[in-house]
């Protein structure tokens, strides 16, 4: 990469006789020119909203008592933290379980596809991504029918007397965690696949030649080389899963509400913008810290490459 600039510079100076210096300077401005339309858009519709949400979170007042005004009202934070601590903890706990289960489920599958998929690799990857072609909400709703108290699974088992009549999955933590796991599994699988696919298969051969067993070859060669993918998968599953509320809304019950449910209720039903924004800012800060630590240690390359592979 380092030589790229010099290549560009070289091409510029090699051009027809125009002033070398101005051309060079213009060249240096090219990336900024390319960035500015999209960058400007992201500043207005990504970064500015985040700042304005922090601003909103420091407002006080009420919708009925003349609207909200900015007052540096930090009490919003202490108030929501003490009231919704349980929801934060629940969201993080669910999300950790989801991420762990999704990694366990996805790793053997992506390993097999990357190492033994042969000419079927792209087709198999396409099948993993198939759920993306059906709306997230519709997929989750179908699980509601599949897991229903008398649906195809539980109904059949109850019919055979294998389960008590009042056994249920819906409205429990199991349903919410299962739903999130299902919905985010492709996000776990992609970075894993990208990392596993990149591993030089000859290295495994070399290990075998040196009398490593299949298990040893996996543990000493494949697993360490796939770790960047595992970490990227962790980040790309854990962070969005923590903020999810659709699964809890559709599959869960009153006892499984996550922080996302509270934020969306406060914003859209109660119209209590300052408290809603405070909750969202807390979630944002936690996730940005996690993402920054990740980027600091491992760089952003692996995670964005997986996103590019979607």
């Amino acid at each position: 990469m380092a030589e790229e600039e010099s290549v560009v510079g070289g091409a510029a100076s090699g051009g027809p006789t125009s002033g070398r210096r101005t051309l060079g300077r213009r060249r240096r401005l090219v990336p900024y020119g390319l960035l500015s339309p999209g960058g400007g858009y992201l500043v207005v519709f990504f970064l500015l909203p985040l700042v304005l949400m922090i601003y909103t979170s420091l407002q006080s007042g009420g919708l009925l008592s003349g609207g909200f005004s900015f007052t540096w009202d930090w009490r919003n934070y202490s108030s929501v933290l003490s009231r919704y601590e349980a929801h934060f903890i629940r969201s993080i706990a669910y999300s950790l379980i989801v991420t762990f289960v999704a990694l366990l489920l996805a790793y053997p599958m992506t390993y097999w596809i990357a190492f033994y998929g042969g000419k079927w690799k792209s087709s198999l990857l396409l099948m993993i991504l198939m759920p993306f072609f059906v709306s997230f909400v519709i997929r989750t709703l179908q699980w509601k029918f599949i897991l229903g108290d008398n649906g195809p699974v539980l109904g059949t088992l109850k019919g055979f007397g294998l389960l008590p009549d009042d056994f249920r999955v819906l409205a429990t933590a199991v349903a919410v965690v299962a739903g999130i796991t299902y919905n985010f599994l492709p996000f776990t699988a992609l970075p894993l696949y990208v990392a596993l696919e990149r591993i030089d298969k000859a290295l495994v051969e070399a290990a075998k030649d040196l009398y490593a067993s299949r298990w040893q070859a996996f543990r000493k060669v494949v697993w360490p080389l796939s770790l960047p993918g595992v970490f990227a998968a962790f980040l790309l599953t854990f962070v969005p899963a923590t903020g999810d509320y659709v699964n809890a809304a559709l599959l869960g019950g009153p006892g499984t509400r996550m922080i996302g449910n509270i934020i969306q209720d406060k914003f859209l039903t109660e119209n209590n913008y300052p408290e809603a924004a405070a909750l969202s800012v807390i979630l944002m800060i936690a996730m940005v810290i996690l993402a920054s630590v990740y980027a600091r240690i491992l760089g952003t390359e692996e995670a964005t490459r997986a996103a590019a592979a979607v």
Partner: protein
Amino acid sequence: MSAVATEVREEAPALPPINPPGQRWTRFILPVYTILMILYLASPIFVMILYGFNDIPGDRQTGKFWGLTLDWWKNVFNIPGLPEAFKNSLLIAPISAAVSTVLGTLFGLALGRYRFRGLRGVDFVIFLAIAVPEIVLGSSLLSMFVLSESHLGFTTILLSHIGFSIAFVAVTVRARVQGLDRSLEEAAQDLFATPLVAFYKVTLPMIAPAILAGFLLAFVLSLDDFVITNFVAGQTNTFPLWVFGAQRIGIPPQVNVMGTMLFGAGLIAALTNVLLKRRKT
């Protein structure tokens, strides 16, 4: 959506399977497991397709399967409110995809081709835009629209969709640009093509597959989005929003029919992509 996956990487020449599994039954574990996982991932899709043909007595989906009918397919647009929501989705997706593809492609070119001051910072912003939970994006956009007293509806949905799609298009294009052989473009310049001409004649055709993939990705992201749209939609409905709202009283089977149609369209697009790629190699 697999479009990019199949585009951005040059496929390595097929190697003979390393570590040839022994003759024991254990060699079937992973392939069988993979097939079971794919069936698991596809199971709600099967249910959706099947229940679009379910001959239920009422007009709301039930857990029980009653028999086959084509009624729901014949009366797809017979639900008040649903066609409008569907139309909004199909209108917003291409506009959002087109705009974010233009902005994201330029962005991806800058990230992939140049080293410049601030590259790391820009990289991190893109990474954040992808990694931040949707609910944070949605609620921050709503905060802004509330503060600026914007009317929530079609426009705010569109503006938001473009915003979250740019980063995805950018990384898709960047991945392709980084894999490019720069010497081709230099060759063109050596043959007295101006940088702009070299770009149009050489670079653009080479990154075109990634641009198309980015467009399709942005299209699907917009079509499918619920969380962010829910925050910025006001009284306007999109397809996922309508379905979410309707589920309280039960969803009409027509929802499954529309879902099946979209799934079919997506599948055809993806398969075409795979086939085109296979012909090339």
